[in-house]
């Protein structure tokens, strides 16, 4: 197992480098550069200023040199410097990462738990009104633009009802500490996490339901019934476990998008996360930040692919013993 993981990590590192190179060219393909953006904001009219900025950012060097310098840095986990923000990229990302992880992981957990429970409920009442209701609600969440739900939720719960804060990560200026701060953050988390989670909840629900129905037609379920097991036990022990396999695959995919997968939600709820950082970086052509975010995102995707694989091995003995 350890060897398996090590081998996979090695392979991932190689892939990561390749991805980095591709990303590098992708990002540099966009018209405009950070020097021009910054000069514009400063209202600078003289070319010397822009040329100086370019030289400072190393943008006057040939692209291949820039790439080489970047790769060399990245290999030592140095993601470069954001000249625009006057900060090392790694630090910028680390500053934002906790907020994003908190948001996306909460949404992730919410969506899996809600989605699977709803899916099981719907499957066990297949064709009944309960199933219809759950499926319909899921379908509507699935079909509604995310930002629309976000706007509506913030309007309703924050402005009209005043129950929950409509944006931000914590109450600014309150200087809470310890548990109170935790609760404060949790209150801020509810709206964005739920909104973000709803879409995936719908997907998990539909997937679990379909998978449950499919598994329940398999022969071993009949065997289980022939043993005289109660339907509840059959549902949990035999159907659900097998039905979760495709759900794990999907969860792996979703988890991989945890970094930067929440641009819209972070925008609407002013959540100080990576997604927003990335969006701003695109607008400002802050290449290093953008590359850094993509790097971290790709690393996450590969990491979660690995975790999914390991999880598969744990859940599905067929794979465990083969490898």
């Amino acid at each position: 197992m350890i060897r398996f993981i090590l081998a996979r990590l090695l392979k991932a590192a190689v892939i990561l480098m390749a991805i980095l190179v591709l990303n590098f060219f992708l990002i540099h393909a966009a018209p405009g550069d950070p020097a021009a953006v910054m000069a514009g904001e400063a209202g600078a009219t003289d070319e010397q200023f822009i040329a100086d900025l370019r030289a400072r950012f190393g943008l006057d060097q040939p692209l291949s040199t820039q790439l080489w310098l970047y790769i060399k840095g990245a290999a030592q986990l140095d993601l470069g410097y954001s000249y625009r923000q006057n900060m090392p990229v790694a630090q910028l990302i680390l500053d934002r990462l906790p907020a994003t992880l908190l948001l996306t992981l909460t949404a992730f957990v919410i969506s899996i738990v809600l989605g699977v429970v709803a899916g099981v409920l719907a499957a066990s009442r297949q064709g009944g009104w309960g199933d219809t209701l759950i499926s319909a609600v899921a379908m509507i969440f699935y079909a509604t633009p995310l930002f629309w739900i976000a706007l509506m939720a913030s309007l309703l719960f924050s402005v009209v009802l005043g129950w929950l804060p409509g944006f931000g990560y914590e109450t600014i200026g309150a200087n809470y500490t310890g548990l109170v701060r935790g609760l404060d953050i949790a209150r801020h988390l509810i709206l964005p996490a739920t909104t973000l989670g709803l879409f995936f909840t719908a997907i998990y629900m539909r997937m679990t339901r379909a998978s449950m129905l499919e598994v329940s037609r398999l022969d071993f379920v009949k065997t289980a019934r022939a043993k005289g097991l109660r339907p509840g036990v059959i549902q949990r022990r035999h159907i659900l476990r097998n039905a979760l396999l495709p759900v794990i695959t999907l969860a792996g995919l979703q988890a991989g998008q945890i970094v930067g997968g929440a641009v819209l939600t972070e925008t609407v709820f002013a959540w100080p996360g990576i997604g927003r950082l990335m969006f701003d970086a695109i607008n400002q052509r802050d290449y290093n930040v953008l590359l850094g975010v993509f790097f971290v995102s790709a690393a996450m995707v590969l990491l979660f692919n690995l975790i999914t694989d390991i999880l598969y091995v744990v859940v599905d003995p067929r794979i465990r013993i083969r490898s």
Partner: protein
Amino acid sequence: MTILQIRNLSIALPKGADRPHAVEDVSLELAAGEILCIVGESGSGKSMSANALMGLLPEGVRPVKGSITYQGRDLLQADEGDLRALRGRDIGMIFQEPLSALNPLMRIGAQIAEVFEAHRLLTPVARQSRALELLHEVGLPDPKKAIRAYPFQLSGGQRQRVMIAMALALEPKVLIADEPTTALDVTTQAQILKLIEDLRRKRNMAVIFITHDFGVVADIADRVIVMQHGRIVEEGPARDVLLHARHPYTQKLIAAIPGPGGEAKDDKQGAPAILRVRGLNKIYKTGGGLFSSPRVVHAVNDMTFDLHTGETIGIVGESGSGKSTAGRCLVRLVAPDSGRVEMAGVDMASLSGADLRANRRRIQMIFQDPYSSLNPRSTIGRILTEGPVSYGTPRAEALARARELLELVGLDASAVTRYPHEFSGGQRQRVGIARALALQPDIIIADEAVSALDVSIQAQVLDLLADLKRQLNLSMLFITHDLRVAAQVCDRIIVMKQGRVVEMGSADTVLTAPEHDYTRALLEAIPGRDYERALKDATGVPACQS
């Protein structure tokens, strides 16, 4: 003493099914300690009757008439809770497909222990030890290891034993076995049959055994019920039904059983060898990589033989012995690792690209599964013309030939415009044969070409093959695990075991005076051998005339 009684049972199928009732007006009685066999072709309602007993009918299918009485209670009226109490405890069931009937994610021990748990018996520890005893009882080698294993780690036969252990765990009074051996090879089948027989004797259990194999019936049945189209057409003690069948359907089924021997074969050894195979090897490596040593299977090990013009060679052996791999190496669906396959002086094994394509049309294949061997999205006409067209025959000409071929294999020429799903299994197999013939090959390789078919249809297809072979002077390699089938159609037989050829000789010699122990064991395991002899005696003719 009757313990189970079915009266006038009718089971309705949902709207749109092929017929309104799966089972109509079925009545039967089962006495303690008795083995009752239900036979009949596919779709005759055997499984439905059995499922009705357990209250496990599929969705949309429900009993509409009659009663099932067990210990004075009508099971059709019982509620789900009562039925649950009976399942596993009073009535056990074994299903056909050992592969899918066990939960792939649970250990064997846990799955057996579940039976006790379902009926709230024993402590968890006691359940495990009881499970171990049961595995021992059904003759599983190394039960200690098996109890911790997952289903996929066991062979088909072993899995079927686990199923039996599970069904027997609570010593039910009635055991229902729905084709429990159909998916197994003969040797394993013989073991399982013996096991059931032993258990019945030891525990005085009543058994309903569903099968379509008359050999099996002859070996174990006390009484036989024959079903056709959802109705019972004949019923009686095993000897009576098997030897003196009254109903024409039963007679037809019995007549279709292929028997050993068959007609006398002329020696074709004198004819020139059309295919010369020398030192053929194929090794599969799987699962290898950075992290684990690969599993190596020597699927074909140093195979050497000649096939003469007009000759049929049978390749037999148990599952996994390398028969299919050998066949596929010959047509180069699989690239052999070493060895020569000479066809008219050309070594097929070393060709590639255009040369391979040019030579390949002389050697064609008929596949096992009539369902998956025809592209469901192509018309029959297209299936039959694609080959010739890709070798340059004009489409119109190829189509005309396709019509002829269809007539040749006994189908209507109008079939060219239809799709595979509009045909029955036997008809599809004929299409498959026509496709192989479309390229006018010299050699045909038939890999389990009749194994998936019902006995009666099997007989028709075998007849067809024999006819065609004569008419077209084909040479044929006939791969099968059924020795009786091999005996019937083959001039010579090759017996394979674990990739090696262990015996090769004329069909008669191999079947009547086998030299190798393995061949002998295979022959031993064929069910119903005594019966066949008896049948021969009773009628004075071989079971099947070709």
